[in-house]
């Protein structure tokens, strides 16, 4: 018998039990819906984080003091370490040491409570040089950044984030206004453009000042907590990293890399580890959703078995009229696969709709920059998984059906 005819018979068989067919595929619909949802949200989250990373400068390289943390509980070491110095910064700026470096900027930071008249705002001050604005691609909506002269003269000129400006001033033209923190007076010379929530530093909520000023007037130390660099091109990053290491080892008289009192991390590494984490999470959640597919498959098998018993007479009749075992097997297997595939397609549509809703909710209520995307691979996965489930859980009932005797047409009342 032709496949088209088998298909027709199966569709007819299913449509005569429409209510039951819908109930049967519910498990598959739910399973594929959750897989699609997890896949789409995981993908959106990954894309969002990666685009943020890119936005902060894909060519960026950071140097942190201390040993490289071996795990999440080992992060404390770098914060308390004072191994990076001004001398290191000067060495790194030299083209003879780092031919592939485009910009270098030192970073120091600490918590402060900024005030203006009666308004106060608890935030963080970042001390650096003008290069940092270029490394992090920070644009100003008003005024200008401080200069190298400001750094040299320990000036009190600062650039503030959009949110700091809103909280302390609540007005638009604030260039030249004064703010206070740690008993010092500072002058606002620039306001950063709004950047939105970022997973790393929220530049809307910081005050950026010359690092010399921050070191001496606020933090009271002379070392550097971070050094930010940017490479001339993505291809130059590996070379830059090894140049940095040898320069700093030279400065710190280190011979064995095991004794390093600093470590270098790149934006790319960060992006890779973020991708890995979201991928692992997606797979994990996806497998939980996958369990519901197995449950759905067992449900299909059950209903198909009931259906085979109930349709014993029909099967017997078909055989009496000349249907072979394989005709009957194909008929019931096709029914099962049609059920699971339509369940899969419904699930993809439903999952797509729900992830679209989730995107809207994430954007509107949490202010995240979530993009809606159902990966084609996810759709193909959904359809092929549901097809496979149809075959796996349909074969046993179909075999049972095919083994019925044509005598059943006469016997079974």
């Amino acid at each position: 018998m032709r496949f088209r005819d088998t298909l027709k018979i199966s569709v007819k068989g299913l449509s005569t039990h429409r209510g039951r067919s819908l109930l049967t595929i519910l498990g598959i619909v739910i399973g594929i819906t959750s897989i699609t949802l997890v896949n789409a949200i995981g993908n959106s989250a990954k894309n969002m984080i990666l685009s943020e990373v890119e936005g902060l400068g894909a060519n960026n390289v950071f140097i942190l003091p201390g040993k490289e943390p071996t795990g999440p509980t080992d992060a404390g070491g770098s914060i308390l370490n004072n191994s990076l110095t001004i001398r290191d910064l000067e060495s790194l700026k030299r083209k003879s040491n780092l031919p592939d470096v485009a910009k270098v900027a030192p970073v120091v930071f600490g918590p402060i409570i900024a005030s203006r008249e009666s308004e106060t705002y608890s935030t963080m001050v970042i001390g650096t040089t003008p290069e940092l604005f270029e490394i992090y691609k920070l644009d100003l909506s008003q005024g200008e950044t401080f200069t190298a002269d400001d750094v040299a003269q320990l000036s009190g000129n600062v650039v503030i984030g959009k949110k700091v400006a809103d909280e302390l001033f609540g007005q638009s033209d604030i260039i030249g206004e004064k703010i206070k923190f740690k008993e010092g007076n500072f002058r606002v010379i620039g306001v950063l453009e709004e950047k939105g929530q970022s997973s790393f530093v929220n530049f809307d909520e910081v005050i950026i000042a010359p690092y010399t000023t921050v070191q001496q007037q606020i933090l009271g130390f002379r070392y550097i907590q971070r050094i930010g660099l940017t490479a001339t091109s993505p291809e130059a990053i590996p070379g830059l990293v090894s140049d940095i290491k040898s320069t700093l080892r030279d400065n710190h008289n280190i011979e064995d890399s095991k004794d390093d009192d600093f470590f270098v991390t790149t934006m790319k590494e960060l992006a890779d580890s973020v991708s890995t984490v979201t991928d692992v999470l997606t797979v994990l959640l996806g497998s939980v959703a996958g369990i519901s597919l197995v449950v759905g498959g067992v449900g299909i098998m059950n209903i198909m078995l009931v259906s085979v018993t109930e349709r014993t007479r029909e099967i017997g009749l078909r055989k009496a009229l000349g249907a072979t075992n394989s005709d009957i097997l194909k008929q019931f297997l096709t029914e099962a696969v049609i059920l699971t595939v339509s369940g899969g397609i419904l699930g993809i549509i439903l999952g797509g709709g729900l992830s679209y809703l989730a995107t809207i909710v994430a954007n509107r209520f949490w202010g995240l920059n979530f993009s809606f995307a159902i990966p084609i691979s996810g759709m193909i996965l959904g359809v092929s998984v549901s097809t496979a489930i149809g075959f796996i859980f349909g074969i046993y009932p179909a075999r049972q059906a095919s083994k019925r005797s044509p005598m059943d047409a006469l016997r079974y009342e």
Partner: protein
Amino acid sequence: MSSENNMPLISVKNLSKIYETDGAETVGLKNVDLVINEGEFVAVVGPSGSGKSTLLQVLGCLDRPTSGEYMLEDKNLKDYSDKELAEVRNKKMGFVFQQFNLLPRQSVLENIKLPLLYAGVNEPERTNIAQRMVDLVDLKDRADFLTTKLSGGQKQRVAIARALANNPKIIFADEPTGSLDSKSGETILDFLQELNDKGHTVVLVTHESYVANSAKRIVHLRDGNIDKDEKVINRRIISKEGFKR
């Protein structure tokens, strides 16, 4: 107008069928010898439990005999696979059951097409044949009806049309009038006689003598064995009794 000739169509020798349920054996047929020639109209009669339905099932290849030989035309069916038997049922045999056995929620035409479907006939041809068959049993105006909407007599006519779809040599009818009122029953017998006149061999199982008397030959079964095998002397020719269907 008799199309009977002496070509043996069915020839069984020493045919036995023993059912085993929970270790207990029930004899369905015991050493049956029977020859049915092409063009015959045979009624199989006997009290219930005599094995007449079993005989029809074995002859109709719905069931395999426990022992004995079954020759259909010149083919020994002993070594036929399930698949080959399915083809034999499909191409050479037509079945009419007491309970009609139509697919509910499907149209008359759809039901008649079933054997054609399994014979691998393609679609436009299937509809052509089914329409001819539906015309043959005077149900042209009901062709697109669901079978559940038909009367018993009409249902049995659909079953006859279905049995004829692949133009089989033999028609097996198991109590075809058993669920019908007498007028509908007569119509069905009339159709069977007409088909026999056209050359189809008919094997009819019944327990009613007036039904059996419409056949040309009566085989009496008792306890799984042929008790008596006789020619019908005063055959009832339904259409000649002034019966209008």
